C-alpha cells in the first residue's frame, strides 16, 4: 500500500485547513448545485456567478473529508475568472488525472492543472477518488444549471 504522504500532500492539507472561496452566492443571479457522496456522507454545494461566458465568482459550501474539501477549494481557485469553455477543459483534464473516463471521444485537452496536481496521489487510493471528484461533478451540474 502506498504511504499516506502520497495522499495527504502539504498543499492539500493547507487547502483543507484554510479553504478558499467558502460561502454562498445569492441565487439568482448565481446558480448552484448540490452533491452527495453516499459512501461517507460528504455534501458539497457549488455556487457560480456566470456573466456572459465567464465565471466571475464561485463559492463552495458543505462539509466533508480533507480530500473532498481541499479538492473543492482548489477547484474554486482554478475556475474563478475563467471562461466556461476553459473550465470544462479543466474538468475533463482533472477527471482524466483521476482515471475517470468520459464519453467524449475528442482527446483530453492539454491544460495545466497547477496546484491540482497535488491530488494525483489520490489515484493510488481508489476509494478516495469519489471524494476528490465530488466538487467537480457538482461544478458540472451547476454549469448545466446555468444553461
Amino acid at each position, binding site marked *: *500500500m502506498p*504511504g*499516506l504522504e502520497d*495522499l*495527504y500532500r502539504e498543499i492539500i*492539507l493547507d487547502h483543507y485547513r484554510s479553504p478558499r472561496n467558502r460561502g454562498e452566492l445569492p441565487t439568482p443571479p448565481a446558480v448552484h448545485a448540490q452533491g452527495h457522496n453516499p*459512501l*461517507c*456522507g*460528504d*455534501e458539497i454545494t457549488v455556487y457560480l456567478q456566470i456573466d456572459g461566458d465567464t465565471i466571475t465568482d464561485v463559492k463552495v459550501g458543505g*462539509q*466533508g*473529508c*480533507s*480530500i*473532498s*474539501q481541499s479538492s473543492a477549494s482548489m477547484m474554486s481557485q482554478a475556475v474563478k475568472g475563467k471562461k466556461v469553455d476553459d473550465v470544462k477543459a479543466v474538468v475533463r483534464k482533472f477527471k482524466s488525472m483521476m482515471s475517470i473516463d468520459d464519453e467524449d471521444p475528442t482527446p483530453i485537452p492539454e491544460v495545466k492543472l497547477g496546484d491540482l496536481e497535488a491530488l494525483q496521489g489520490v489515484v493510488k*487510493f481508489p476509494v*478516495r477518488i469519489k*471524494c476528490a471528484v465530488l466538487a467537480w461533478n457538482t461544478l458540472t451540474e451547476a454549469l448545466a444549471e446555468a444553461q
Partner: protein
Amino acid sequence: MSAAAVDWARVKADFPVVNGRIDGQPIVYLDSANTSQKPHAVIDAMADFMRHAYAPINRSAYRLAAAATDAYEGARTKVQKFINAPKAHEVVFTKNATESLNLVAHSWGGANLKRGDAVVLTHMEHHANIVPWQMLAASHGIELRWIPLTADGQLDLTNLSTLLDGAKVLSFTAMSNVLGTITPVAALCKAAHDAGAVAIVDACQYVPHNVTDVQAWGADFVTFSSHKMVGPSGIGVMWGREALLDAMPPFLGGGNMIADVRLDGFTCAELPAKFEAGTPPIVEAVGLGAAVEYLSGLGMSNVRQHEMHLTDYALRTLTDRYGDDITIHGPRNVEVRGAVLSFAFRDIHPHDVSQVLDQKNVCVRAGHHCAKPLMRLLGANATARASFYIYNDESDADALADALDGASDIFGL
C-alpha cells in the same frame, strides 16, 4: 457455562478473514455492525450443501429435493428456537432485514393504515425503518411521529404516552447501529399495546449479540438479517404473530406463495409460503441455520457478556488515552449499550480517520451509517464507528487506540 468458560481465542480461530493479512499486517476487523465475518462452520455448511445436497425445495418430490426441503425447513426451525418464536411457520425468510421491514410496512401497514393514522418511530432509526414508512406516508397519508433522544443517546420516553396516543404502530430499533444504545424493548412493546398499537422491533443489531425472546418481548413483528449474525448475505428474517400474518395480504406475488392461480385471480398459500414468493435463498438458509447453531454453541448470554466486557474495555482505553480529543457517542453504561462505538476524533474528518486506521489494517466504517436523521441530531454528517463482535478481543481495542495516533501526525493537530 459462563463467558469465561468460552475459549474466545478458539472462536477467533474459527473466522478466516480476521486471521488474514493485508500487506503482511494482520486485519483488525471492527465493522461487524455493518456486516459480520463468517466462521468455517457456515462457509463449509454452504459449500457442502452445494456439493452434495443442492436441489429445489417445496416443488419436487424425489429424495434429493425432499432432503433439500428438510434442510431449508430445518433452518426455519433453528431460527424459531433461537428467537423463541411460538411457531416455525411464523418465521419468514426474506432477502435482508430491509425487505422484512418493507414487507411489514407494505403488507400490514398498507392493509391496516389509513389517512391520518399515526406511526411512531424514533430518532435513532436506521433508514430501513424510516424510508418504508415515508413511502407509506406518501401513498396512504399516514402521520409519522418521532421519539426523541436524551443527551446521552437513549430514548427520551417522557412524552411516550402522548406520542402513542391514537397511534396504530410503534416501530423501533432494539439497538442503535450508531450509538450502541439498547432500548427497553419489552416496556416499549407493552406501551404500544396499551395504546392499541402494533409493536414492530428492528432487531438487526440485537439478535446477533443478545439472547432474543420475541415472546418475552411481547412483540408483534421482529426483523433481522443473517449477514450480521455470522450467517451468509442474501437472507433475512421477518417473524410475526400468526394471527397478524394470517390476516395480512401477501407482499410479492409469484410461485410458492399461491394456493391456486386462475386467469381471473389467485388465492394465497398458507404460512410461511404466502410470504416467500419465488425460489428462496436455499443455500443461504442452510448457512443461516449453521450460523444459529454456531452462536447457540457459544451461548448468547456469553456473547453478550464478552461484548459488554470488550465495550467497557474499549471505552476506557480510548478515553484514558485521548481524553477530550475523542468524543464517543451513546450511553457510557454498558448495561444499556452494545459493542458499537461511534466517535469523533479531534477535528479530523471520520473519512480521514478511517483512512489512517486502514493504513494499519484497522477496519472501521466512516459515514452516516444509514441513519441521517440521527446524524443531524449529533451535528455531524459522518462519524467513525468501531464495532466489536465475538472474534474481537482487547488487542483489537488496543490496535484501534494505537492506530489513532497516526492521525495526529499527519493532520498535526
